[in-house]
């Protein structure tokens, strides 16, 4: 009898220490696009995230962290397998990393069902902003429409008539043109959707030439943007018809690839290199030091995702099983590279949107320069349809 009692105590102790050990690390599943035409985006986001974790001494909220990275190859099927592995085998506490909206929409429900918080560092589909908003979904970057709304507003104030708009045919592409049209009130010359991952834009460029618009607005993520701008310049249109872009298609990665033709192009962004706050200054400096290149907005979003997790885990005292408290902590916001950031009940941020222009600096480097403010404390258009509080 006494022996059995001892055994029970021992077993209890073992179990206790086991559960203690489990609590001592937080596991983050980071599924992102790390190969193919969209790889530059995922790699920048991952590097930004890893940089923040490293600067926080490999801890988030004071708890040691393990980041498990997987490549979705920009393929929903591959992403589904990777997410399954994260949820079922690795039993991660949080997930983040996905770049493309069509991929997030393919795996989102599986993540929410497991009651795992997903902190999106890029994809911000309208589907998760309105009626189908979810308590386990947060987006640290923006809602898909936002940057395009800002550019629509800017093109509208410049009084351009007859604008040709073009985007790839996938959720974020449709969100993009919807967002642009929400604030641009002039005439649309044509609204054209190209294939996602299309690389030859000769057919679309011929259509633009024939339509004779006063301006062109296009959203092309990753290598598509590089190819579109190069081909648009090669066709001689860049000198004739001004091109307006969201920040995605005019950041350091695209500038590096396209070069000179980019100079002068206006674009919209929620983040800029020279935003004047200590978090951003440290981020830009450390990123340049660690990776020897200029950070993009994707890198800032990855960095911010880690800071957001850090703040929330700290707020719940490291106990990541308290899901409701975590949600409250996420909603309360944190100190980001864009200054203090707050969130709407649908999980999307309330923030400023800026105008940037690509310029050639006196030292010859081609960079984005902050050129003004478009929206202040801007929310997305869908939050009123979300029933969460």
């Amino acid at each position, binding site marked *: 009898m006494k022996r059995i009692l001892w055994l029970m105590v021992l077993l209890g102790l073992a179990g206790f220490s086991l559960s203690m050990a489990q609590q001592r690390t937080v596991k983050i599943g980071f599924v992102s696009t*790390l*190969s*193919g*035409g969209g*790889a*530059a985006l995922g*790699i920048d986001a991952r590097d930004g995230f890893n940089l923040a974790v490293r600067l926080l001494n490999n801890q988030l909220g004071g708890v040691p962290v393990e980041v498990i990275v997987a490549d979705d190859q920009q393929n929903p099927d591959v992403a589904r397998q990777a997410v399954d592995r994260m949820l079922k085998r690795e039993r991660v506490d949080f997930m983040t990393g996905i770049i493309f909206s069509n991929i997030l929409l393919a795996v989102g429900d599986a993540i929410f069902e497991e009651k795992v918080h997903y902190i999106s560092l890029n994809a911000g589909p309208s589907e998760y902003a309105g009626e189908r908003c979810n308590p386990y979904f947060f987006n640290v970057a923006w809602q898909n429409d936002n940057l395009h709304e800002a550019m629509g507003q800017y093109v509208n104030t410049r009084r351009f008539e007859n604008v040709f708009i073009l985007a790839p*045919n996938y959720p974020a592409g*449709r969100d993009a043109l919807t967002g642009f049209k929400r604030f641009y009130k002039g005439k649309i010359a*044509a*609204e*054209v*959707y*190209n*294939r996602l991952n299309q*690389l*030859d834009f*000769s*057919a679309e460029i*011929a*259509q633009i*030439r*024939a339509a004779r618009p006063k301006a062109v607005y296009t959203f092309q993520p990753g*290598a598509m943007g*590089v*190819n579109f701008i*190069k*081909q648009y*310049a*090669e*066709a*001689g*249109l860049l000198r004739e018809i001004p091109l307006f872009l969201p920040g995605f298609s005019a950041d350091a990665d695209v500038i590096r*690839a396209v*070069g000179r033709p980019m100079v002068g192009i206006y674009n919209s962004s929620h983040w800029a290199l020279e935003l004047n706050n200590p978090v951003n200054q440290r981020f830009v400096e450390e990123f340049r030091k660690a990776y020897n290149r200029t950070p993009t907005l994707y890198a800032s979003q990855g960095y911010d995702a880690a800071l957001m997790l850090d703040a929330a885990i700290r707020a719940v005292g490291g106990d990541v099983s308290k899901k409701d408290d975590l949600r409250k902590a996420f909603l309360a916001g944190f100190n980001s590279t864009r200054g203090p950031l707050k969130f709407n009940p649908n999980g999307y941020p309330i923030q400023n949107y800026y105008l940037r222009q690509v310029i050639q600096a006196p030292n010859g480097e081609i960079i984005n320069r902050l050129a003004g403010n478009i929206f202040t404390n801007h929310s997305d258009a869908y939050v009123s349809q979300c029933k969460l509080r």
Partner: protein
Amino acid sequence: MPPSLFLEQILNGVQFGLMLFLLAAGLTLVFGIMDMINLAHGSLYMIGAYLTATFVGLTGVFWLGVLLAVVGTALIGMLLEFSILRQLYKRDHLSQVLATFALILIINEVVRIIWGSQPLLLSAPEGLSGPIEILPGLNYSAFRLTIIAVGLVVAVGLFLLVNNTRVGMWLRAGASNREMAQAMGVPIKPLFTLLFGVGAALCAIAGAFLGPILAVQVGMGESILILAFVVIVIGGIGSIKGALVGALLVGIVDTAGRAFLPLLLSQVASPEVASNLGPALASILIYLLMAVVLFFKPQGLFPART
């Protein structure tokens, strides 16, 4: 529809078609003469593009880079033939498909190991990166015009090679009846190695000139390989003339379909539906063309074997 739009799309179609021809020419000869299905043909195209990007980066001169890449890819092609593909000639088509598919996977991984999984940058040479005014009011990319010129020059060169030289005569003999050609003393083994080198060189030219327009990335060969097979089936297996006609047909139908179908559809449907349906219908169009050609001419337009 303004005539300049029409002309521009036809030029786009011809440009794409000529590049397809470079791929299809090697494929059709290998398939027609050696009776060998080589799925790894697209990999040679990828290797050509990667070598071009590397050599252009090293030398700083576009044309020198292209030349080095073409020679390099031809050597790699001949090495492949000599070491691996030669073992497959006597096997049936299924073994060839399996083995060359394995080659695709291996080459993709090797390229990933050497150059990484991020796409490489390859830009058009400085003087050709702008537009040229070909008609009053119609600017067209100088580089795309260069591609058309290069494609035409290579096509003419290939015709002269096949129709006016002894090697060409052997090739034609091999394509129409391999056993008989062998019996008549055509040196088949070195001919095959040479043929493979030529095919690889053509792939490299296509890779070098499509690289700056598209992207130099792993897996770039697979998507274009399917189109190249469509081309040789339409044109007739083993026929260079067939490959040229088939490639131009496929290039023009593909580009025109992509450009004009959404335009036509947008007259009757919303832009989203039009752009959803347009590209889908455009890609069906190519296979429709193939089905129609095969219905009337089961051997393709210009069969090498009669």
